[in-house]
């Protein structure tokens, strides 16, 4: 088995909430947002992991911890065998080239007063890639690669539409020939017809460049097209992990089942499994299984004991007492209620 390109172990990132004098006077204990609360996974070179979940589940924070845009509190982020968390800012520089990111809103991540050429040249200069002449050629090549024209190099970000700006964001990330690309909701701000264009572009680039990708999204529909494996997050934890086809065919965790049934599909979707209520705050994480307050199938055990993420079918992991009990021959059959 090949060594994974990326391995995350027990990653924890909590954000302390402001603790005011009044809080202290009233003897309120300091509170923290448990954004990422013990996440482990490994990603093989050349594969794409889809990281799915709703707002506040910690998927973006996890991405930022891997990029060291946030410093995690605990855990390891091993990239190509090296724990990035142990590196100083200076030692990180070569890794900043090997791991790149594309954000949701390319507009706020592009300098409005710089032409596209300058933005891209800056990246190449910082990482000392090629001679000045080669860099100019590389800019033209990058623009072509993402479906823009080399003549666009002299325009400013404001002259482009949302979809074109996302192409520029992708070109900038690819400029340094990264090995791992983290794409954080790169399609969410785009219209459907444009979203499909960018999705196709990511598929093409991945195939031609052999990129390893983490694709962060709230949209299961999009994730299905782009990912080899999918991790579903809920309140700071991965609750299910499986190869994409397996996850969509045999979802095991009630939250995944509910997410899939909530997608408004043309032509009618899956039988609706309405889950009521809203995700609790990551400040007051429920005792036991984090999903139990919204789970239609919860058992007594779920209120007491937090389930571990473990392999319950070949290559398919879930953190759910109910799914586990069902597979080992007890408990209710969720799928008789679903499929």
């Amino acid at each position, binding site marked *: 088995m090949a060594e994974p390109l990326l391995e995350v172990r027990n990653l924890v990132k909590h954000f302390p909430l402001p603790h005011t004098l009044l809080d202290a006077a009233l003897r309120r204990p300091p509170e923290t947002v448990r954004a990422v609360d013990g996440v482990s996974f490994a990603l093989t070179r050349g594969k794409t992991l889809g990281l799915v979940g709703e707002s506040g589940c910690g998927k973006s924070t996890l991405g930022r911890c891997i990029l060291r845009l946030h410093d995690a509190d605990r855990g390891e982020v091993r990239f190509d065998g090296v724990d990035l968390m142990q590196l100083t800012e200076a030692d990180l520089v070569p890794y900043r080239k090997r791991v790149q990111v594309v954000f949701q809103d390319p507009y706020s991540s592009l300098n409005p007063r710089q032409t596209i050429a300058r933005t891209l040249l800056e990246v190449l200069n910082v990482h000392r890639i090629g001679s000045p002449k080669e860099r100019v050629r590389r800019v033209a090549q990058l623009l072509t690669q993402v479906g823009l024209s080399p003549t666009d190099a002299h325009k400013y970000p404001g002259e482009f539409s949302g979809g074109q700006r996302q192409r520029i964001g992708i070109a900038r990330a690819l400029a340094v020939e990264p090995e791992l690309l983290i794409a954080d909701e790169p399609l969410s701000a785009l219209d459907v017809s444009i979203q*499909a264009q960018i999705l196709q572009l990511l598929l093409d680039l991945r195939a031609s460049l052999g990129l390893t990708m983490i694709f962060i999204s709230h949209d299961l*529909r999009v994730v299905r097209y782009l990912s080899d494996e999918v991790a579903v997050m809920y309140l700071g934890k991965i609750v299910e992990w499986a190869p994409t086809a397996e996850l969509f065919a045999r979802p095991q965790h009630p939250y995944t089942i509910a997410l*899939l049934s909530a*997608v*408004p599909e043309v032509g009618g*979707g899956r039988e609706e499994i*309405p889950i009521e209520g809203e995700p609790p705050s990551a400040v007051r994480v429920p005792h036991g299984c984090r999903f139990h307050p919204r789970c239609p199938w919860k058992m007594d055990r779920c209120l007491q004991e937090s389930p571990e993420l473990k392999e319950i079918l070949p290559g398919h992991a879930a953190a759910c007492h109910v799914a586990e009990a069902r597979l080992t021959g007890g408990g209710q059959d969720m799928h008789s209620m679903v499929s």
Partner: protein
Amino acid sequence: MNEPLLTVDDLRVEIPTPRGIVQAVRGVSFAIDRGETFALVGESGSGKTMTCRAILRLVHPPGRITGGNVYFKGRNLVRLTEREMERIRGSGVVMVFQDPMTALNPVLTVEEQITEALSRAASASSRRDGAVELLRHVGIPDPERRLHAYAHELSGGQRQRVMLAIALARQPALLLADEPTTALDVTIQAQILRLIVRLQKEYGMALILVTHDLGVVYHVVDRVAVMYAGQIMELAAKRDLFARPRHPYTIGLIRSIPSVDRSRPLVPIPGLPPDLIGPGPGCPFAPRCAWASDECRTGEVPFVKVGDGHWSRCLKADQLEGITGG
């Protein structure tokens, strides 16, 4: 024959900008019956939201309605005084918006905002009871306590529920919902859509849902108008629109939606939407259309009937017969 509840006839909206005049809505016409559910679908800049705002005469200046009529229960809203229009907005036609945080008043409690919308004739205590009842009806847990909450204390889903409670307090005949679930997570979106459908039936309201999401359309409405570049491109019963689309833009939209359960390839629509400043002659979709020919780029394209209750603004509509989106 019954008169429609709402008739929009050749509506036009223009917005002057430093670069020129944006023709946001270019001759939109449709009619809705009482209790009917209808969707205006389109991408950013298609004019779907502007059409809705124009119906309620809520176009922000310097944008303005430059032509057309809007008949609601037989009265032409375009001709009403601002005072009369306020009465219509207060009871006949009510709009809920994508972002309830900006639509709710941040310095008034939930109770104050709902009771304000309830009939003045009722006593204070019965209005309070009415507010509690409405909150319970839209699925707010612990409504008595929630009466005292401010908008910022509510989650996105709860804010949208409160917006719906305020709308229902006015007992509208027509609810305009502008992307009501776009800012919400998918499980919450499903809850709010179920709620809207339930309320629409219980109150017998007509509904115009403005959305970019054909998936949402499929689950909520009876009839659909697909908008592009300020015009309705196709108008049909939902079933016909998805089974027998007769406009290349509709076909393109359907084919570019990713699906959870069908592993068909995505077919993106190439190119970009047009600039609505001084749009040229011909079909605005022609530059992105695989079927387009010279006549599409030059001539006026009429809105023609292609089936029972099914209309398309396409010269090639006949050639599209038998093509499905999926």
